[in-house]
């Protein structure tokens, strides 16, 4: 610990052009030194609420002059610098020799906007922003409970990022909280600019292509997760919170499932699973059938495929590979382009290039149709990270299909299932409630049962309080 001195602070803040050191004198002859970083504090409030009252005051100390401000006494240089960088103004009272810190952070932030990554037609539209306090506020509004606990951690030697662990005490399984605390405490890295960076350090299997934390910017989704016995991790300066523990099946659930009528939601949810399967296996099946198993094609379809593939220069594998890569280039390009341009790009990429490829004899019509179906199927999965993962899986299945045909695809599926079965999220099985089997949780798994049937919190999460309804019976 180093003692605070003006010289030491001046030395630390050397070559920081936004660092200010200002001296002011009161009518009583008291000298105050204000040290702050101009870009991260609210300068208007500094002038109106701190400097003005202080220099005009006839009181003998800072505490007495600024009775409404939250003042922290400083004792060492490290603490002073830390507070300074968090947006505090350091005030030195020359008469008493005391150093004080007054928190005046610049509240520059965007307003609460609609979620762009998890859009829904009906239901709450608000979403998290980059400001941590605002995000916590959105949850506290939804869950006004004293049992809603928040614990702060600071991670990143350079970024000094604040991470908040949130859970409902007395409801969540304490095992999860302890495990998450251990993970967060053991993080050792310099920069954390997004919640996915934190997730990379606290997830159990960082080599896997499947996310083990659900990233969401929807407060309603977080509140629901907290309410059923999960925990949420907020990271400062990012609108995406992390939800854990999750299973593979959570990645296919959308907040809209609970807004739609339960029968409609139960129809849509299996459609997402089917779409995911289609997105990873449809084109590999085409390659397997056209390369190895022509016998399996119905004659009517064989007729169409022979017609469309008769004069193509590329084998089914290379044809599919090139089309898929092209499709990914178009998708990536449309993501990076401005909105209006990306729409044109989609049209040019999807229709013009596809049509031109068929007419030029580089690709078959059948494959273009299948590639279109496959690409659209990926968008049905609500989780963006899974959408991206499905691309890699598709290529893996494509290679298996090309070499081994349909047994290859089955081998790939078995391998994928084995991998999923080995995954854990917050040390909890990733395929629960299928493996291990929790029959009661199936009411909200492949179908979304009526809310009345969900009177018990998921068994797989082993919550301390498992009933969602009052247990008093008349």
């Amino acid at each position, binding site marked *: 610990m180093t003692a605070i001195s003006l010289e030491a602070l001046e030395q630390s803040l050397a070559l920081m052009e936004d660092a200010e050191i200002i001296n002011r004198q009161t009518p009583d002859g008291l000298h105050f030194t204000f040290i702050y970083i101009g870009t991260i504090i609210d300068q208007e409030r500094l002038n109106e609420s701190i400097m003005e009252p202080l220099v005009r005051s006839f009181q003998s100390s800072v505490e007495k002059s600024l009775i409404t401000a939250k003042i922290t006494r400083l004792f060492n240089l490290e603490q002073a610098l830390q507070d300074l960088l968090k947006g505090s103004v350091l005030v030195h009272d020359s008469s008493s020799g005391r150093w004080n810190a007054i928190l005046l952070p610049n509240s520059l932030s965007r307003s609460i906007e609609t979620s762009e990554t998890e859009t829904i037609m009906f239901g709450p539209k608000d979403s998290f922003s980059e400001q941590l306090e605002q995000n916590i506020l959105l949850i506290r509004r939804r869950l006004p409970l004293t049992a809603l606990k928040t614990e702060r951690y600071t991670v990143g030697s350079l970024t000094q990022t604040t991470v908040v662990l949130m859970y409902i005490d007395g409801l969540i399984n304490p095992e999860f909280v302890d495990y998450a605390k251990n993970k967060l405490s053991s993080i050792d890295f310099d920069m954390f600019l997004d919640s996915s960076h934190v997730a990379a350090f606290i997830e159990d299997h960082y080599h896997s292509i499947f996310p083990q934390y659900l990233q969401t910017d929807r407060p309603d989704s977080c509140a629901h997760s907290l309410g059923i016995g999960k925990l949420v991790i907020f990271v400062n300066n990012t609108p995406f919170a992390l939800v854990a523990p999750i299973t593979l099946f959570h990645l296919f659930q959308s907040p809209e499932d609970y807004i739609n009528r339960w029968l409609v939601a139960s129809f849509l949810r299996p459609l997402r699973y089917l779409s995911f399967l289609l997105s990873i296996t449809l084109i590999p099946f085409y390659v397997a059938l*056209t390369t190895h198993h022509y016998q399996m094609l119905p004659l009517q379809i*064989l*007729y169409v495929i022979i017609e469309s593939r008769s*004069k*193509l220069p590329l084998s089914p594998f290379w044809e599919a590979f090139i089309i898929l890569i092209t499709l990914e280039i178009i998708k990536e390009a449309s993501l990076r382009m401005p909105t209006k341009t990306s729409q044109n790009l989609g049209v040019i990429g999807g229709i013009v290039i596809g049509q031109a490829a068929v007419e030029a004899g580089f690709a078959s019509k059948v494959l273009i149709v299948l590639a279109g179906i496959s690409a659209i199927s990926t968008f049905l999965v609500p989780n963006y990270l899974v959408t991206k993962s499905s691309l890699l899986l598709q290529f893996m299945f494509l290679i298996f299909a090309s070499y*081994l045909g349909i047994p290859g695809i089955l081998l790939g599926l078995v391998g994928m299932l084995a991998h999923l079965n080995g995954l854990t999220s917050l040390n909890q099985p990733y395929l629960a409630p299928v493996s291990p089997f929790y029959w009661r949780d199936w009411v909200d798994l492949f179908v979304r049962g009526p809310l009345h049937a969900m009177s018990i919190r998921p068994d797989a999460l082993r919550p301390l309080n498992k009933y969602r309804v009052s247990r008093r019976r008349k």
Partner: protein
Amino acid sequence: MTRFLRTTIVLLASFLMILPCGCVPLPENNMIEEITPIIFWSVKGGREDGKITISTLVPPLSKEKKRVLTLNVSLLNEGNKGFNLIYHNELKAGQIRLLFVDEAYAKRGLTSLINTVLTDPNISKRLFLVITKGNFDEFLAKHLDEKDSIDFYLYRMFKHYEKKKQGEITVVNLHQFMKMLYSQVSDPQLPVFRAEGEQLLYEGTALFDWDRMVAEIRGQDDQISQLLYRDRFVRYLVLPDLSVTLGHIRAHTRKKLTSDLSSLSIEIDVKGRIDELDSLTRIEDNFQYVALTQKIERYLEENVFHLLSQMQHLRIDPLQIGGLTIKPFSRPITRDTWDRHWSTMKINVKVRLHLEPLTKVK
């Protein structure tokens, strides 16, 4: 090291899992643009040297100029191999859907041909078997135009009539033929087509004794046979002798054998409507309507009786009446026993006609 061991075990287990399932880990190269998946064979017998003539149309399923490949061979697969030597693509039999067999060949027996097709693991059991008359190769030669996909259209025709048992033509696939062939108490039947110039005309149904074609039924008999065979639907039952056409016919047949196998009673409930009437009968008059119905019933009874008598005479059972002798916990009767009883069996036929007159009957 542990990871290496684990990987080895997983790979070994995967391959062991695949191999016993009969899946070849490195399958054949069947790249669709490099092969020619033929969809029919036409087999003709009756040559003096005992050889068979096998033909097919290439390239199949495409809008290109076609040609007929024909070879005289001793064995079916010799022809299959021979085709590869005279055509630039490898001919694959995995999509073969139609097998046309010449009448002369069918009369000598189909067992060897059927067994060859049946034992080939690539060939599906849903292969339609057809008996042809006339010069089938000449018929094919008239359909070589690039716009003409006669092979595909023939397949579509059989597939259409197979679905929902349409009953216009007899449709039998390899699986059904085998089932009837190896049954102790029934005989197979197949459709018969005549190739005439550029037309392939449906003639009727060929009846088999074991694997040899012994008779053919046509026209009205064929339609009645189809009605009796598993309650098919027949769109039109034309009865020129009565100047009447019945439409949308569905029959429900109840067959009953006496325990000593001495007599068979058949009750047929025929539902349909009068589609065409070329006589002075006034069906809006109830009396005349009932008279016409009774007339049709008697006529159908006579025809069914006549058809069954023919079958008794030939000692064949394509309608699988012998299946009625099979009962749980009892020993199935032998072929000889059934033939002996069937040929002398007394037959009673009762037809009940339920007609929709499509007009007001007073």
